[in-house]
């Protein structure tokens, strides 16, 4: 009964098309933002920030990127890791060329490099579809991984083929490197993610988003109503890779503080794909849910035995954790194949008719 849209009339089409047309949703989002921007920085521990919140923000952004491509446009990609890597290495190069530039700006700009590379690997998408397209993106994944090692210029000829994130500032405050506090890094990551999420939701609600979904749902019909498939798919590749690139730069600069080719390997691609699927294909919100579940669950599981005062060997915990995560993935898929986002919607639906069953 509390969650009702009854009585909330929309008087203009603009209001009807707003991001959160329902008042309760707007309040909810405002509360979440308030907590995220104010409460968390005040109270969260370093561990919570560094190992939980920042990673989830980074991974969510990558998941949004992949979701734009796979969930909205229906193009399966297994090259996310590679595109993230492009972003990370681009950011590293940029900051070594312009050490004094605002690092936040550089992080965002490095997405452009990734978008360019992404578009190139999107070229075969006109001819190749479905799982077959996945091979093109896999080629991207492995080829890029190889480049990250074989082109020493990318990591400034470092002997270990790794990038080490130097201390860089924005507005005089250290944002990256060892001297940046977790809170700063968290707030920067949060701001980027919130802004880019907002942009992504704008895109998918507008003309471009509709053309993407049309191509996903039935490309032949889309073509016949005048959507140019090729352009649409390439744009999806470019924007998606842009998001992944920024996420990659954030991964190196705001989260791990160092990165190497292996940080962007195929497993990373799969991980992001799972987040998208578990969270819900074609749902921005789902990307967050997915990241929280896939990243957060193992952490919680690892902490669980200690919490209950049982001592279990680290390796056993790890093994059990694999089993539990695997089982839970299957469980969630069975409960709701359309992902956590749909589950959330159904919950809201139930809330709407509560206390009646339907």
């Amino acid at each position, binding site marked *: 009964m509390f969650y009702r849209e009854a009585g909330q009339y929309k008087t203009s089409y603009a209001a009807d098309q707003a991001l959160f047309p329902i008042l309760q949703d707007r309040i909810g989002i405002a509360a979440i933002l308030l907590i995220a921007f104010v409460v968390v920085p005040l109270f969260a521990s370093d561990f919570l920030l560094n190992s939980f919140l920042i990673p989830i923000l980074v991974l969510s952004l990558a998941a949004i990127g992949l979701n734009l491509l796979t969930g909205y446009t229906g193009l399966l990609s297994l090259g996310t890791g590679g595109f993230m890597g492009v972003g990370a290495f681009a950011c590293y190069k940029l900051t070594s060329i312009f050490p004094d530039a605002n690092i936040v700006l550089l992080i965002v700009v490095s997405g452009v490099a990734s978008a360019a590379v992404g578009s190139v690997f999107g070229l075969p998408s006109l001819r190749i579809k479905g799982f077959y397209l996945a091979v093109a993106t896999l080629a991207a994944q492995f080829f890029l991984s190889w480049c990250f090692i074989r082109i020493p210029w990318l990591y400034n000829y470092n002997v270990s083929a790794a990038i080490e994130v130097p201390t860089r500032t924005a507005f005089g405050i250290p944002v990256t490197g060892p001297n940046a506090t977790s809170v700063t890094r968290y707030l920067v990551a949060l701001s980027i993610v919130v802004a880019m999420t907002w942009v992504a939701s704008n895109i998918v609600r507008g003309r471009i988003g509709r053309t993407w979904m049309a191509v996903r749902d039935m490309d032949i019909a889309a073509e016949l109503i005048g959507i140019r498939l090729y352009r649409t798919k390439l744009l999806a590749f470019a924007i998606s890779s842009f998001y992944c690139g920024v996420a990659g730069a954030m991964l190196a600069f705001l989260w791990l503080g160092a990165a190497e080719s292996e940080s962007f390997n195929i497993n990373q691609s799969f991980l992001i794909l799972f987040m998208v699927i578990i969270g819900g294909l074609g749902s921005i919100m789902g990307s967050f849910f997915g990241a929280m579940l896939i990243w957060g669950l193992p952490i919680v599981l690892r902490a669980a035995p200690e919490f209950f005062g049982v001592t279990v060997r680290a390796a056993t915990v790890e093994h059990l954790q694999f089993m539990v995560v*695997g089982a839970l993935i299957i469980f969630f898929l069975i409960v709701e194949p359309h992902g956590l986002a749909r589950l959330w919607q159904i919950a809201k639906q139930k809330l709407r008719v509560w206390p009646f069953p339907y």
Partner: protein
Amino acid sequence: MDILYKILIDPFLQMGQAPDLFVQTLWEGLVAGVLYSLIALGFVLIFKASGVFNFAQGIMMVFAALTLVGLHAKGVPAFLALALTVVVMLVLAIGIERLVLRPLVNQPDIILFMATFGLTYFLIGLGEVIFGGEPKTMITDALYLPRGSYEWKAFGGFVAFQKIDIAAVIIASVMVAGLAVFFQKTRIGRALRAVADSHKAALSVGISLEQIWVIVWFTAGIVALATGIMWGARSDVSFALQILALKALPVLILGGFTSIPGAIVGGVIIGVGEKVGEFYWGPLLGSGIESWLAYVIALVFLLFRPQGLFGERIIERI
């Protein structure tokens, strides 16, 4: 000019100058290709029958090999262990059907793909709990798999044929041929293809998805066991083997997801292409190009045949 020479001419000169190495390269490519095909075959079976892209094929291979080696280590005679492993794979197939596939019937492909991911995680955990993470040595001798090699003196050098590789090629060919016949010519085979097309329609004509799935997953399990033995004999039996399963992807895509002969032809093309590429052109790029060459080869083929070499035509009709 020099670079052009190195790319366009020099490799072929080398092939001519050292034909023994060239033949050896082809052989290595063939063997690797056949081994890729075996992994791919597991994928194809399941994909054909249920439209499921089974990510867990790799871990099934590890799991099967580990079970075999583990049982043997517990003192079970090798061939009894082999039989028991087959039983384990059957139990696994039944379990998967009950707990994973049945509740997910008629869901989109990507969802089932994801479920097999969950399965992979689960099996990794389970495998490590039961067998531990240490690598094991394949019980090659106990299974009477041959060791050593034939050396063929020819072309002023030698070509070495590992006996185990010869065995792998033979086993793989027999399996592929048998399965191809079984699935093309029998009632079950047709039902399988029907299921891959549409779960819903298959249900409506009375095809028992449960039964079909158990059959294919079990068959895929046997293929996984064979693959595990062969790959295990080449290096060792460890969870790292699972990564190799990815190599089946370009093979699959090249051969077409649904074709059993496609798996073997695709495998050989990829295997030979990759080894020849690495051997003759790899050094120009600093070597180690094998990691992506296979995908690029597959990609080039796909641009000409988007459904793979033997894949079913993609039906586009409105």
